[in-house]
C-alpha cells in the first residue's frame, strides 16, 4: 500500500501531528455523537422536548456531518501512522465493527423511525443508537490499553 506509506511518513514527520489529530478526533466525535445523542435523548423524553424529532433531526444534521468530516479526516490518518498495530489490535477491530453498525443503524432504521414519528419505537431506537456509539468510544479508548497484538 504505497499510499499508506506516504501518509505514514507525513503523520510521523512531526511529534505534534498525532496528538493534533487526536484533538481533532475528540472535537469531531463530540459533534458527531453529541448531535446524535441530543436527538436520542429527545426520543427518550429528555432535553430538547419542545421540538418535534423530525425537525430536530434536520437542524442537527449539519453538525453530524461536520463531526463526521472531522472524524473521517483524522481517523484514517491516525491509522496510517502505524497500520500493523491497529490491524492487530482487538479493540480497534471491535471499534470498527461497532462504528459500521452504528452508521448503518443511523442511516437506515433511525432516520426512518424519526421521519415516521412512530410512537413507541422511538425509545428503543434511541437506546440502541446510544449503546452503539458508546461502544465505539469504549473501543477507541481500549486501543491504547491493548498490550498484545492478535
Amino acid at each position, binding site marked *: 500500500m504505497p499510499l499508506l506509506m506516504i501518509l505514514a511518513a507525513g503523520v510521523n514527520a512531526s511529534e505534534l501531528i498525532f*496528538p493534533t489529530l*487526536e*484533538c481533532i478526533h*475528540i*472535537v469531531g*466525535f*463530540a*459533534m458527531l*455523537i*453529541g*448531535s446524535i*445523542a*441530543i436527538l436520542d*435523548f429527545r426520543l427518550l423524553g*429528555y*432535553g*430538547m*422536548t*419542545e*421540538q418535534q424529532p423530525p425537525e430536530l433531526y434536520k*437542524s*442537527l444534521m*449539519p*453538525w453530524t456531518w461536520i*463531526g463526521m468530516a472531522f472524524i473521517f479526516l483524522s481517523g484514517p490518518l491516525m491509522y496510517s501512522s502505524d497500520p500493523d498495530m491497529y490491524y492487530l489490535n482487538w479493540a480497534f477491530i471491535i471499534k470498527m465493527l461497532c462504528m459500521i453498525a452504528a452508521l448503518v443503524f443511523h442511516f437506515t432504521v433511525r432516520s426512518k423511525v424519526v421521519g415516521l414519528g412512530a410512537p413507541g419505537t422511538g425509545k428503543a431506537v434511541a437506546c440502541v443508537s*446510544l449503546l452503539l*456509539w*458508546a461502544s465505539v*468510544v*469504549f473501543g*477507541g*479508548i*481500549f486501543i*491504547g*490499553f491493548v*498490550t498484545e497484538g492478535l
Partner: protein
Amino acid sequence: MLEFCQWLQATDVFTALRGSAIVYPVILSLHMIGIAFFGAMILVTDLRLLGVAMRTYPVTSVVNRLRVPKRIGFAVMVICGVLLFSTKAEEYYYNIFFRIKMILLALVCLHALLFAENVYGSAAEMDTSGITSKAKIAAGASLVLWLGLAICGRAIGYIEPPLEKIHAFLHTAAEAPGTGAPALRNIHD
C-alpha cells in the same frame, strides 16, 4: 498538596484500582462518553447564542431545555475525572497539562459565576429583545474554555511522569516485582 496526592493514591481503594488493568480504561471511557453525549449540548447552546446553530428555535427551548442534561453530563465527567486522578494522583500532580486543565476548570466555574444568571438564566428575555452582546461573549468564552479543556486532557497523556519522584511506583513494584514499572509508564497508554 503533594502530601495529599500521595495519601489519596495510597488509600486501599485507589491502590486496588491502580492495580487493575481494566478499571482505569473503563473509567476513562466513561469520561469520554461524557464528552460524546454531552459535549455537543454545550456546543449547541453556545452556537445558538452566537446565532450560528438552531436559529429558528427560541433561545429558551435550547438553553433552558439543555440545562439539566448538561449538568448531568458535567457531573459524570467530574466524577470520572476525580476517580482517574485519584488512582495516580501524584503523577497528575507533576503533570503540567493537568495543572493547566485545572486552571481552565476554575475558569469554567468563574464563567458560571459571571454569566449563569444574566446570560443563561435570561433566555426568555433574549427571545423578546434579542441576544445581548454579553451573551455572545459568554458563548465565545465557553467554546474556547471547553476546547482548551479537551486539548489539555489529551495532552496529559503525553507527559512522561518523573518516575524517580513517584511514590506509587515503589508501591506497585513491590506488590508485583518486575511488572510494576509498565503500570506507570504513561497515564493514558
